[in-house]
């Protein structure tokens, strides 16, 4: 807790006036029509948390089905819809909205701005994303309805052509997939444009690009990457709909079309997409780790350079998802090299984090615990990524449970862990109350243990030859026991997430009051009240270093004397 008196004027909160009593409907209306970045950020987070529970349930069902060979909990058709929806939901309705939600809430506060550059576009983008999600889930009700899960997409989250052609996917399942993602893609594009314009054009006085908090820097990079990441998918999905409805031949192998071009387009989107998901995780870690080891981040310029490097190089690695489609040996070699190279700036970031911890005074609060988990897990994920980049080995590992283990190590072990860290860290700012540390630690340890039981074991299944996307497996292949172990870990993670959900909800009313700066942090958002007033800052702040609040708290030893 910071007890240093901050020269921030008292907050005048108009809504505490006794004469104004707001009805529930008026409150709800306020939330629906809001253009305030803080409210929209919270809406994104609530939306993603809801879909995290939904997609998590889908995962639990998948694991129950696969706990035993020839299990009959889910039929083949239902299973295929579940794993398609699990992947699609987690990427588009959980990952992206969580991260854009954090961006929405935190970025304007960190740069000393009043709101995002285009508040109405902000609201429009949120509702487009939300509507896309609802459209995707409405598919469960179409066709035969909930029993047999209706028309939910069942073509895998990468929807390879020609499986998605009219002849192989009759009905509307694929159309729900394409349309829902096109719609939410427009929302994503809008948010990316908004974040870029906000960060470039609305920084407070003195905040040069090299004085921005790393969270903001990384979100600028992510948003720029998003511009050229989500758009190829939108283009490919338009092509798919033209094929399905206007008789087009983009992916029609009968007319000379190519399945390979879908695969290329999808992964031109798909690979940078995972960087769009993981860079914000880095962004969150960049804020939390320094605060809880009481040191400035080690090597800020290198962190910026490495992130920019990652942005560019990540656009050149996509075909490492395609080592088995029959590219030439030279192409395979090229993509092996580019993929290995993108590991270099990524590794540098890990070294910088360790150097930040080195010599510090580490406080093991819940957000920090999740960041520590992130560090170990991202290290391992990066190393299994290197293994997969070795294309001959990938010829064995591709489409096996090894790959699933690897990308869940990144998406859960790094991204979800950092999302949890970020929620524990900024929840007090947004609500004025701290989440329970005790429940937080239960959440962390159960989740980490469950995570490792599941995903460490899963690597073995891949090495033993078990492919992905299968609703069952033969009992004589030696996979039985390992699958059961993986499933048990999944259930443990589910329990952990329920503890989190409980903590998240109940702390709003019963959490300890947080104050402006419960973590004794150094960036501008901690100079406002918790929650901040609707206008954020009474006067536009003026900064002279990367840690304006450090300068205030340590007038004898300000950062600007040391920053290069």
């Amino acid at each position, binding site marked *: 807790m910071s007890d240093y008196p901050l020269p921030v004027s008292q907050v005048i909160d108009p809504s505490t006036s006794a004469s104004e009593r707001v009805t529930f409907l008026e409150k709800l209306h306020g939330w629906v029509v809001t253009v305030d970045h803080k409210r929209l950020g919270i809406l994104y987070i609530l939306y993603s948390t809801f879909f995290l529970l939904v997609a998590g349930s889908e995962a639990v069902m998948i694991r129950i089905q696969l706990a035993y060979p020839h299990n009959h909990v889910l039929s083949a058709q239902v299973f295929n819809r579940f794993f398609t929806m699990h992947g699609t939901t987690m990427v588009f309705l959980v990952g992206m909205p969580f991260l854009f939600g954090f961006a929405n809430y935190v970025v304007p506060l960190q740069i000393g701005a009043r709101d995002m550059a285009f508040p109405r576009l902000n609201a429009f983008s949120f509702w487009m994303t939300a509507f896309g999600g609802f459209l995707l889930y409405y598919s469960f009700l179409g066709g035969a309805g909930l029993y047999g899960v209706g028309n939910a997409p069942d073509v895998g989250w990468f929807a390879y052509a020609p499986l998605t052609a009219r002849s192989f996917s009759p009905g509307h399942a694929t159309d729900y997939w394409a349309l829902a993602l096109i719609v939410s893609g427009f929302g994503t594009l809008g948010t990316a444009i908004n974040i870029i*314009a906000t960060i470039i054009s609305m920084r407070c006085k003195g905040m040069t690009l090299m004085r921005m908090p790393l969270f903001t820097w990384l979100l600028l990079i992510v948003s720029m990457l998003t511009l050229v990441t989500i*758009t190829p998918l939108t283009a490919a999905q338009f092509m798919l709909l033209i094929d399905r409805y206007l008789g087009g031949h983009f992916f029609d192998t009968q007319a000379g079309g190519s399945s390979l071009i879908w695969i290329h387009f999808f992964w031109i989107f798909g690979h940078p997409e995972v960087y769009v998901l993981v860079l914000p995780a880095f962004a969150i870690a960049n804020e939390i780790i320094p605060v809880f080891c009481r040191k400035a981040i080690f090597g800020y310029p290198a962190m910026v350079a490495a992130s920019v490097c990652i942005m560019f190089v990540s656009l050149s690695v996509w075909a490492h998802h395609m080592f088995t489609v029959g590219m030439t040996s030279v192409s395979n070699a090229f993509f092996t090299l580019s993929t290995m190279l993108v590991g270099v700036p990524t590794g540098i970031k890990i070294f910088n984090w360790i150097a930040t911890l080195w010599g510090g005074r580490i406080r093991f609060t819940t957000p920090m615990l999740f960041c520590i988990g992130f560090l170990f897990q991202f290290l391992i994920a990066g190393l299994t990524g290197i293994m997969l980049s070795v294309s001959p080995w990938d010829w064995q590992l591709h489409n096996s449970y090894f790959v699933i283990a690897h990308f869940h190590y990144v998406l859960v072990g790094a991204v979800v862990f950092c999302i949890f860290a970020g929620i524990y860290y900024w929840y007090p700012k947004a609500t004025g109350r701290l989440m329970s540390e005790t429940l937080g630690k239960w959440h962390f340890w159960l989740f980490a243990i469950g995570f490792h039981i599941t995903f460490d074991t899963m690597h073995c299944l891949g090495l033993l030859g078990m492919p992905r996307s299968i609703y069952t497996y033969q009992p004589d292949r030696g996979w039985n026991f390992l699958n059961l172990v993986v499933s048990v870990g999944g259930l443990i993670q589910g329990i952990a997430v329920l503890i989190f959900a409980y903590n998240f909800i109940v702390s709003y009313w019963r959490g300890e009051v947080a104050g402006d700066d419960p973590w004794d942090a150094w960036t501008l958002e901690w100079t406002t009240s918790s929650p901040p007033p609707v206008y954020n800052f009474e006067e536009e702040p003026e900064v*002279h270093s990367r840690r304006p609040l450090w300068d205030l708290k340590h007038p004898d030893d300000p950062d600007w004397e040391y920053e290069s």
Partner: protein
Amino acid sequence: MSSIPVSHPVRNAEWRLPSKRRVGMTALIVGESAIFTIFVVAYVFYMGNNLTGPTPAQVLEVPILGTICLLSSSLTIWRAEKAIEDDRTGSFTVCLGATIALAAVFLTGTALEWKKLIYQDGLTVSTNLFGTTFYSLVGLHATHVVVGLFLLTSIFIFSLFGWVDSRHSERFGVIALYWHFVDTVWIVVFTVVYLIGR
């Protein structure tokens, strides 16, 4: 955060940041360029791979008039930008009107071309790979022209009422930026479809 107790060596010079509108439009243009790139790649990938049906060489006529008109409209909209910056609203209205007229000629040319292709040459989006990729790419571009035309016409009507002056020059500049983007895309599409592809 209004008072910093210690004297600091660097006084923040006048703090000027790029215009958020220009940045936003530039970002949108980058995203749209990616979409167009994918459609161009598909067009190039499938060039010469048709199993049946009319080929580009057989049915495509180079739309010289339309291209000249569209590219000239970049010039006229630039004149309009300069005019509104100097508060010359009359000149602005005229140049904007010229831009719209030139774009309309372009669109009409496209419409006539498509009419010929569909009814005379029997080329539709489902005929063959050329049909699919041609209509998608050129159609995507034409859609962007239509959107631009809608925006420009609205402003034209506002300016006829005398509601537009130099205070709006930055916003008009952003729309002009979009229009220049549309023209640049046409240069690429024209080169790929009518020059290389034939």
